[in-house]
């Protein structure tokens, strides 16, 4: 498998099948943690970290346990538990060993437990990448690169959206449009703009 495949996976997940604007996953942090650019950057970093690790772990569990024992129907419940456990573990490790990282990411980590984008990527890795004949290593690498691209796409959008919202706060917006309504209009326009990237690959 060449690097072109991995590069294509990253660009496709980041720009073409963007997790927020095209798949409508992770809308909760997209609207909730995008009021300030600093919060958006912290949330993006935490999502990137958990999404990549969760994709690797869930792919491994599916390939080595769920498929082997012929129980793929419990994948959704298993993945939810894996993600929730992973978030607790990462938070604990950061508290203990990396205080500076905990300071910047720690407050966003519990929110990731309920971020459906993480579960969505884990599920799409299984439905779109995993096949019986694909060697475990290649599939795992592809899943990790897809997760990386997806999280970069998440970060790009949430950062751009937070920058626009900060600008909107100081703009002269009609009273009826202030706050969430104008933000949703902006999100809709961004989604339409990203449709234009469909043909790049």
């Amino acid at each position, binding site marked *: 498998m060449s690097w072109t495949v991995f590069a294509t996976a990253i660009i496709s997940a980041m720009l073409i099948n963007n997790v927020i604007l095209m798949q409508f996953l992770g809308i909760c942090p997209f609207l*909730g943690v995008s009021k300030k650019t600093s919060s958006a950057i912290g949330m993006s970093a935490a999502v990137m970290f958990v999404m990549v690790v969760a994709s690797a772990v869930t792919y491994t569990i599916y390939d080595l*346990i*769920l498929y082997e*024992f012929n*129980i793929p*129907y*419990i994948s959704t*419940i*298993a993945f939810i*538990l*894996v993600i*929730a*456990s992973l*978030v*607790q*573990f990462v*938070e*604990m490790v950061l*508290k*203990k060993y990396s*205080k500076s990282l*905990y*300071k910047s990411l*720690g*407050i966003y980590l*519990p*929110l990731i*437990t*309920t971020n459906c984008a993480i579960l969505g990527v884990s599920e799409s890795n299984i439905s779109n990448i995993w096949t019986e004949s694909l060697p475990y290593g290649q599939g795992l690498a592809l899943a990790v690169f897809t997760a990386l691209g997806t999280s970069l796409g998440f970060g790009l959008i949430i950062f751009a959206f937070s920058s626009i919202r900060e600008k909107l706060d100081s703009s002269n917006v009609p009273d009826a449009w202030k706050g969430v309504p104008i933000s949703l209009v902006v999100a809709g326009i961004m989604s339409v703009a990203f449709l234009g990237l469909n043909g790049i690959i």
Partner: protein
Amino acid sequence: MLIPILVIGGLVLTYMGLYILNKKTPIPEECREIVDKVKCGGCHNFACSLKD
């Protein structure tokens, strides 16, 4: 029938263990201020270790 129960049970136990360990791990002193600032009832995430 036994294997799915064992797998889910194992994952649930893993989660419970990690949740308890995370709760018992003290928040670093230098992060107290930032954690106190975000303590809220706004999000209903029961797993959030920052909530009272």
